[in-house]
Structure formats: structure tokens, C-alpha cells
């Protein structure tokens, strides 16, 4: 699974990234988590509010820092 956290680097985006990383680690999910800070790449996903979580190319969460439960749901666990 490929998980991307989109956000230009503000505090909210960083905490979103931490939440996702923590969930992936704690549940031993086989996934690579990357943080996307490049605006041009971010715009390909057609999002208008950050932070956003993209799982295998599909935008699952956008506009707020997700809770651990939300991330679990997005990852399908």
C-alpha cells in the first residue's frame, strides 16, 4: 500500500503525518508513508484543503488532521 500525506509543511500537516505514521507502525501495516510538500504534485490530486491523506492514489481524508480511527478506516483496517 502506498500512503501519501499532502501538505505544504504547516503544523497541521506535520501532525497529520505523525498520526498516519503511528497508525501504520502500531498495526504493522505493509505500507510506505511519504510526505508530499511539492505544490505541483499536490495539485494532481485535485484537493483544495490540506492536510490530505491519499491511499493508493485515492484521496481519503482532506482538510483536517485525522484521528487515528479515521486513518484506520482509510487504510481499511
Amino acid at each position, binding site marked *: 500500500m502506498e500512503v501519501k500525506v499532502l501538505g505544504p509543511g504547516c503544523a497541521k500537516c506535520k501532525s497529520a503525518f505523525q498520526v498516519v505514521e503511528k497508525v501504520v507502525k502500531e498495526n504493522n501495516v505493509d505500507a510506505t508513508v511519504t510526505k508530499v510538500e511539492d505544490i505541483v504534485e499536490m495539485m494532481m490530486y485535485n484537493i483544495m484543503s490540506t492536510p490530505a491523506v491519499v491511499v493508493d492514489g485515492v484521496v481519503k481524508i482532506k*482538510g483536517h488532521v485525522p484521528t487515528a480511527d479515521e486513518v484506520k478506516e482509510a487504510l481499511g483496517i
Partner: protein
Amino acid sequence: MIQQFADWLVYGLFGLDAASPLGVAVNFFFYDTVKILILLFFISVLMGIVNAYFPIERLRNYLMTHKMYGLQYLLASLFGAITPFCSCSSIPLFIGFVKGGIPLGVTFAFLITSPLVNEVAVAMFLGSFGLKVTVVYVVSGILLGMVGGFVLGRMRLDGYLSDWVKQIQANSSAQADEWEKDHTTFWKRLPVIVHDAWGIVRGVLVYILIGIGVGAFMHGFVPEGFFEQYMAKDNWLAVPLSVILAVPMYANAAGIVPVIEVFVAKGIPVGTAIAFMMGVVGLSLPEATLLKKVMTWKLIGIFFGTVAAFIILSGYLFNWLL
């Protein structure tokens, strides 16, 4: 009720003298902190609920598919007021608007109001200055976005966008994306909204405490009317000067209102104070550096200059009106 709690805590439990500067300062600190934190939390929850039902994608699709003869400036500005603002969200929003072929002026209307009127600013104003000044602030913030956006739109500034944005603009399509309707129920959403609101409160807590601390100190120890001699109503330079000072400041927006509250109590005109706040909250250097990714410096200069000019104008207007 909160006042009674603060009185009980400070004069009763701590045993401070209600007539001493220290007693007044500590009382002010507890009263303002509790009041503002409660307000901030509830306003954040409220705005979170509104936002869950009117996501920004919905506005964009609406603006793209309807012709509105000027009303679009009001709509964009109103939406800017209710969306929570994070300065780094402004770029994706900007691109999203440009992509949809929405005119630059309308996009600017949104960009001006969004940081100006947000949950933190509203809560701080409500807690510090009361309802009347808050309403004046919010209404003028929305008007400022409309007028500013309209004027900027008239200037035909599209040529000053960054090259890659110009390309997006050229390929823009008025075809609205399928707007994914979220079917999550309200009760399932509420915990997330409350969680977010709590995050906002936690994020600015430190600034609020510092701001109220400084405000409390001045409240107790600086004599009435002290600032009047420096920033009186008839000093014409006061408004532009305070706006120029305000533009580079940003992150401490939450901390600055309690200080301004005391400034006003000790003799600074409200209009000057509001103009200063608008400068702090609405325009900032971090925002400018982010905007650099989509605009040339010249466009950022024109944008900031125009907005600052309107803020100065409204400062004079408030000093005259209030």
C-alpha cells in the same frame, strides 16, 4: 459567572487585595483566559459544523456553474469567513479556484477574508471587545474582501501570475468536478469536529496565555489614558503606522488581541486598534512567501498594498464612526 469565579479565586482563595494593581492584574488574567478559551472552543465547534456541510469544493462548483453579476464577490468573501484558515491552505485553494476558471478578483475576495475573519480572531474579539466591535470587525472584514477583490479584479493582474499557474489557467475548464457528497452522519462527524476544535484551542493556547499575561500586567500597572498622548484620535499618522507595523506580524494574532484590549481601555482609539488587528491577521510575511509559489513579487506587492490601503481607510472610518 466567570467574573464571580475569578473574584472568588483571586480575592478569596489567593487573598489578593481587589484595590491593588496586582489583584486587578491577576483577576483580569483569570477572567479573560477562562472566557476566551470557552468562546474559542465553542466558535471552533460551530465553524467546524458549518464547514462540514459547506465544503469549499461546493462553493467552487457553484461559482463555476452560475453567473452572478457581482454577487460572486460576496459569496467568495462569505465563504472565506467561515472556512478555517491555515496560511498554507491558501495555495491549494488558490490553484483550485484558478483551475476552475474562476476570475482572479473573486479568488482574491476569498483570499482576503479567509485569514481576516476566522474562529480565532472572532473568539478573541468577542472575549476582549464584546459583541458590537466584533460585529463591526466581521462585517467590515467581509466588505473588505468584496471591495478588495473587486478592485484587484479590475486591475487585470493575470499576467503577473507564476508561469505554471498561467498554464493551469489557460487549460482551466468550467466543468465542475463531481462533488463527492459525504454521507457520514452528523453524530459520527461531531467527535472529529470537536477534536479539531480542541486542536485549534491547544494550538493557540500558549499565545493566548502570553497575550493575556502581558495585557493583565498593563491592565493593573499602566495608568488610565497613558497611551492617549502617543496615539490620540487627532494623530493622523497613527492608523497607517500601526498597519505598517502589523503586516510582518502573524503567529501571535491570538496573543495580540488581549494586549490591544488594554491599549483601547487606556486610551487608544478603537478604529486604530481594529486596523492594527486586520493588518496582523490578514496580511503576513509567511503568507507572502507562500504566495510566491503562485504569484510574482509584483503581484504580491499589489495585493498587499491594495489590502493595506483598504485597512487604513477602514481604520479612519471606524475612528470617525465609533
